[in-house]
């Protein structure tokens, strides 16, 4: 197998296909107390993240929208990763995950299943796809009103 095919296989791991086909927490949330929109003007990927926060914790999180397999799987994995976490931890995870994909990953952090998304590092044009949901989450957590941008 050539190097690039290995990179391709790393990008599209089974977990990605699984979450693309059957995204978790993929629904609107009528009783959400925070909602944020994310949009990638370059490729048209668009999603909405819903949050219910209680006692400083992400009690529930969900999303709807459309996009490529990477952005959909990333959103799905994100909801699993932050559900039940304290808000500060979710924010810290956003920062660390962003660093993992774009720069130097923080030492000693175990990203668990989110590691499957590191395949995008070989495809710089696709990093935005993997981070869109996270930027949107960040906006929902911090109450930013402008739609999240990946630029």
């Amino acid at each position, binding site marked *: 197998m050539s190097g690039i095919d290995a990179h*391709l296989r790393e990008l599209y791991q089974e977990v990605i296909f699984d979450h693309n086909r059957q995204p978790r927490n993929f629904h609107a949330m009528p009783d959400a107390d925070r909602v944020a929109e994310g949009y990638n003007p370059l490729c048209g990927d668009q999603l909405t993240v819903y949050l219910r926060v209680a006692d400083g914790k992400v009690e529930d999180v969900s999303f709807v929208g459309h996009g490529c397999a990477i952005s959909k799987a990333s959103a799905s994995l994100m909801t699993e990763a932050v559900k039940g976490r304290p808000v500060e931890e979710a924010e810290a995870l956003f920062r660390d995950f962003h660093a993992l994909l774009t720069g130097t990953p923080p030492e000693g952090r175990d990203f668990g299943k989110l590691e499957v998304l590191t395949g995008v590092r070989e495809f710089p044009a*696709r990093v935005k796809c993997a981070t869109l949901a996270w930027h949107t989450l960040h906006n929902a957590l911090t109450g930013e009103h402008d739609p999240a941008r990946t630029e």
Partner: protein
Amino acid sequence: MSVLAFPSRTGGCLRGVEDFPILSRRIRNKPLVYLDNAATTQKPEVVIEAESLYYRESNANIHRGVHWLSQRATDLYDEGRESVRRLLNAARSDEIVFTRGTTEAINLVAYSWGCSQLRAGDEVLITAMEHHSNIVPWQLVCEQTGALLRVVPVSDCGELDLEAFEALLGPRTRMFAVAHVSNALGTVNPLPWLIERAHAAGARVLVDGAQAVAHMPVDVRALGCDFYAFSGHKLYGPTGIGALYGRAELLATMPPWQGGGDMIRTVSFERTTYAPPPQRFEAGTPNIAGVVGLAAAIGYVEHLGLDKIAAHEQALLAHATEAVGAIDGVRLIGTAAHKSGILSFTVDGIHPHDLGTILDTQGIAIRAGHHCAMPLMTRLGIPGTARASFALYNDENDIAALVAAIRKAQHMFNGGGQP
């Protein structure tokens, strides 16, 4: 890639691929298959050489020096204008205004013509298949003038609704701005008929020729349009240079839209008078090297023959339409009766972006997304498409590579993730 043979400067027989240095490079360790020509075309050696030679031997500013080099640069610049005139078969070379490209050419007309001519309640008619650059300038100018923007709808197969077009044309229609060829779908619009109708209603017509000039002979006098805009970089020429054709009577009445050097006759603080067209619309030092490169590109396609290029690309389009259309799960987007060499499609279960990445790993460059035509995508009810677009150097092998890579993507997405 190419099967087009033609005599070279050295008298031998070259194939297109040998004229385009970039086409022999490898991408991700695979031979490059370049199918993103609607975004920009690759450049032949003659264009690269012409620009480089200009800087080596003829560089100076134009229209201002008494010295030899300045005259030489001015001559080359004027020759470039004459090349564009010939390409479009305009009557006079002063009907050609150099711009940065199609976008700037359309903005020039929207601001200069539009802001001076449009009144509240006037109508600007565009179509649902326009590139954002033939939508947004008109929106901006409509906002400023109080004119209204009207849109000719598009059918499911990507053709203009001609009945709706006729119904939308009215006494208040002042401008009809339309793409010659749709960059997203490849549809070739029936310009002579559209232009005749629009003129009969008293409207001016601007044609966005960005996707046409490299792929078919264009004759602005036969078309009868008032304005025609194109970009050099989609015509095997450099980026940052393009042109606007405008009928002389119209350009003569249009005010400047940018001020500066080169566009004036006399300047005083009380009153400045402007140069006649085309200088009136070319403020500041222009992209002289770009004009030289564009002239070389025009010479190149003229030498090959735009009719031969058109025939070659039509054959490729027919072949690609059949080969890609035959793949299970592929839906062709844009199946107009009259098309240019652009093939847009979607693949069941695979987002265009994912497809683009997988094709990229096979050395195949295509475009994935909305192609700067978001209203068109909305109309067709899709977030975007994958788009393969052809040029004179593409051939059947490129289509075969495309088909194989689409199958590979399907295998990955439907067959358990093994590339």
